[in-house]
């Protein structure tokens, strides 16, 4: 157990899995000499060489497609897309190919490909570099979606992703790379599809994932001072989605707030809310609230950007309104 950053946790998971399994390799833009645009692959090239740490051209479509083919060929490719914004250039290979091939080929193949990519706003990178697109991948049967919030989960989910057989969209967050936390050394596997109750409470259930989990925790602390006892759940994954843990909590609190950084409309929060209603309708004493990004491109200006994104303050305001 050591206190390391989300970035270091991912780097550690990559090293451990590359040591464990010869078939695991990583490719992407700047993952080698540069050590990754966010330094997640830092040092890997020196240890594993150009064969297993491959710098690619700026060609998202073929980078992902080559990952699909390599996975069919018996390898365990990890493709790093520099940011999720660029995944839209490769989404044909993700949605039309990787996610469908096993089924459309009658179960005769599998595509154990892990696509890692950071998303999120908050650094004034403007409309084309600040998106959170998990909703697109959630709406794609055949594709697993992991979206860790903590360093420990980043390591444990990435290791698990590399040991299962289906394609995985592994969504990191640009604002979390430097966040530190306790991470078990060595063999630490977080099972797919298990949400994590970060904080127990009886008054309201705050459901979230990725960076928003931290906003939710801060909101919970603030609410405590106003005597509101909030339970915070980190979903960790969107597919499989552990709605059971959420429903259990809602049955206890009778209130739910879903917090996410994607655009509010059509975002993952709509699905989570719908499932909460479907499973706990009679236990809800208020409609499920959604705290998310405004339905608009992300502005460059610092204040406008802040105003467009969900915050702990927004969560607190909503929670108090619900009480």
């Amino acid at each position: 157990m050591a206190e390391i950053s989300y970035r270091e946790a991912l780097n550690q998971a990559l090293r451990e899995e590359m040591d464990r399994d010869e078939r695991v390799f990583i490719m992407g833009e700047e993952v080698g000499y540069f050590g990754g645009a966010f330094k997640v692959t830092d040092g890997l090239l020196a240890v594993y060489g150009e064969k297993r740490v491959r710098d690619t051209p700026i060609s998202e479509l073929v980078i992902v497609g080559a990952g699909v083919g390599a996975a069919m060929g018996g390898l365990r490719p990890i493709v790093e897309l520099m940011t999720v914004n660029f995944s839209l250039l490769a989404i044909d290979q993700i949605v039309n190919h990787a996610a469908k091939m096993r089924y459309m080929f009658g179960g005769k193949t599998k595509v154990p490909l892990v696509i890692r990519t950071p998303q999120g706003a908050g650094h004034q990178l403007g409309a084309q570099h600040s998106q959170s697109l998990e909703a697109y991948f959630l709406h794609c049967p055949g594709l697993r979606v992991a979206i860790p919030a903590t360093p420990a989960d980043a390591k444990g989910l990435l290791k698990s992703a590399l040991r299962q057989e289906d394609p995985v969209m592994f969504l990191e967050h640009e604002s979390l790379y430097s966040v530190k936390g306790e991470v078990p050394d060595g063999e630490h596997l977080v099972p797919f599809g298990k949400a994590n109750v970060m904080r127990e409470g009886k008054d309201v259930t705050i459901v979230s994932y990725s960076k928003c989990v931290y906003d939710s925790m801060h909101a919970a602390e603030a609410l405590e001072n106003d005597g509101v006892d909030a339970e915070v759940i980190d979903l960790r994954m969107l597919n499989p989605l552990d709605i059971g843990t959420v429903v259990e909590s809602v049955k206890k609190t009778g209130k739910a707030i879903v917090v996410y950084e994607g655009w509010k409309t059509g975002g993952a929060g709509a699905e989570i809310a719908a499932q909460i209603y479907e499973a706990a309708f009679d236990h809800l004493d208020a409609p499920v609230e959604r705290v998310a990004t405004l339905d608009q491109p992300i502005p460059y200006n610092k204040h406008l950007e802040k105003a467009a994104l969900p915050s702990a303050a927004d969560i607190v305001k909503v929670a108090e309104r619900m009480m």
Partner: protein
Amino acid sequence: MALERDKHVAQRALLTLDEAQLLDVYRKMVTIRRFEEKAAEMYTKGKITGFCHLYAGEEAVAVGAIQALYDKDYVVSTYREHGHCIAKGAEPRAVMAELFGKETGISHGRGGSMHLFDPVLRFMGGYAIVGGGLPIAAGLGLSVMYKEEQEIVACFFGDGALPQGAFHESLNMAALWNLPVVFICENNFYGMGTLVQNAISQEHLYKFAEPYKIPGVRVDGMDVLEVYGAVTEAAARAREGDGPSLIEAVTYRFRGHSMSDPVEYRSKREERIWLERDPIKNLRKKLLTERGQDETTLKQIEAEVEDVIEDAVRFADESPEPRLEDVSKHVYVD
């Protein structure tokens, strides 16, 4: 459009291939032709539904190319892949059953005509997104190189795929990384109803190899031996670690784009010219005149093929439908 043929290559091939191989090539081509004719018949009878893109007329490309490969080599194709799949060794039964949507189909009835697949035969799939197979072929090539194995990958696609970014991204990666992939463009002059000249500013498609510094050749795709020769060379190069090649096989589809295409955009005259260049007639004549085969041998092969196709239809017809309760099986492994 003048064809820069390499008849020496073809001639050499005619001599390199022994009698048994030549007859096998002939059998495969006839099998594919008869399979497609039967598929058309079954489609009109409503036994086959959805999209059905026939390969009749282009047999020399798939058979010639795959004859130049080893069993362990990979093949990636498009939605017009019945021919490639059979050439790679698939039982007409399994393919016909797939077109019928049966559980015994090569993709268990889940894929249909456009999505045939068999890992044992190293037939790595028919893909229905134009250009979609190329990145995957590059990836298979990468996996071979990574494992330091000897296989190569043959990737088939149409002229219509060249304007797709995927074609260029794949060629560049394959060239840059020296991947063992032979890119085979089936230039049949049309992408649906669009003439290649209206889709690409360069009608000599093999020339797209040049900027990537990889070999590019154009062959007569109606001459199975010429295709065989060119792919043999490209495959050897790939196998020896000298990287990818681009082969443009000029061919012609005798039927419409799919079963629902009335082919109004082609002139009768153009079609007649190409029907005269029928790759099967072409080879048959060669076998009789240049390799001293006799009518009876060829007739017998044709008769045997007839039975195989009839059996395939019977098999497909009698095979069970997938079970409804299995509708969601195979979405995930875990």
